[in-house]
């Protein structure tokens, strides 16, 4: 295997890997921000300026994490001596990148879920039904079948 062929394999791996990782990250970040904005708009009803700000910050963090990770794992070195090895290296790298993107993406979804839950809980009625209705003195009305402690 000549030096030139190895270098050629490495350059191909790097080229495909770099373009795929940047493309995937950009595509995912845009998807996240586009759909997340609708979500956050619903969450931050009491403070509407928060929605675009939080969205932008999340996307910036997403870019930093993903591109940083993709560039750190770019180096293939001696793992791409033959075209077959180069293919395998490329697949392993792209697979690891996709898995990490998936983990971060689901982490983001969980974050959205938590934020939304906190917003929804703000408007939620008490978790137990009242045992009785008592709008004014002398007008008490005990609900039937309310002997159980939780209504």
């Amino acid at each position, binding site marked *: 295997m000549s030096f030139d062929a190895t270098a050629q394999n490495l350059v191909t791996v790097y080229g495909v890997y770099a373009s795929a990782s940047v493309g995937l990250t950009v595509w995912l970040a845009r998807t996240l921000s586009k759909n997340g904005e609708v979500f956050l*708009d619903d969450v931050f*009803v*009491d403070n*509407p*300026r928060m929605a675009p700000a939080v969205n932008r910050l999340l996307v910036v963090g997403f870019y930093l994490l993903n591109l940083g990770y993709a560039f750190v794992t770019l180096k293939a070195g001696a793992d791409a001596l033959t075209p077959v090895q180069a293919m395998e290296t490329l697949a392993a790298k792209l697979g690891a990148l996709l898995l990490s993107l998936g983990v971060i993406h689901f982490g983001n979804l969980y974050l959205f879920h938590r934020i939304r839950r906190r917003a929804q*809980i*703000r*408007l*939620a*009625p*008490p*978790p*137990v*039904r*009242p*045992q*009785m*209705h*008592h*709008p*004014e*003195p*002398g007008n*008490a009305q*005990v609900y039937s079948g309310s002997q159980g*402690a*939780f*209504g």
Partner: protein
Amino acid sequence: MDTALWLSNVEARADEKFARARYPRTLAILFDPSCALCRRCVHWMQHQASYVPLSFIPCTGEQARARYGDIPWLGDELVVVSDAGEVWVGPAGFLTCLWALEDYREWSFRLAGPAFAPLAERFFLALSHRRRALAFLFEPKCKDGTCSLGR
């Protein structure tokens, strides 16, 4: 798009959402003033951040008897009354108190769920029925649970 107009639209929607949400806007908590444990709990609640304004009314007082005298559980159990006249008694009142506090609302839903509800109910009933006996925890000299905490 005009940002000020967009913001005022979002704010109007937020106001509407809050106005439409059906939850108690204030709570009156009728506690047993002759029990050291209950006074201690009231003191604790008064120092917690709450989602809705709370008023603490001694259940043996003139105000409680005039306004809520026809609630059959008054004096025996913890009674919580909303501005709309809903009445929660005993363990349900306990959960409604937790619901009102910012740091414990999640726990009120958790404790009202199928996994914890029986436990929460037994816990509260055990505390409530032994509330006079438990006064020694707060003041060792206290024999019958009716003495003052000296606060």
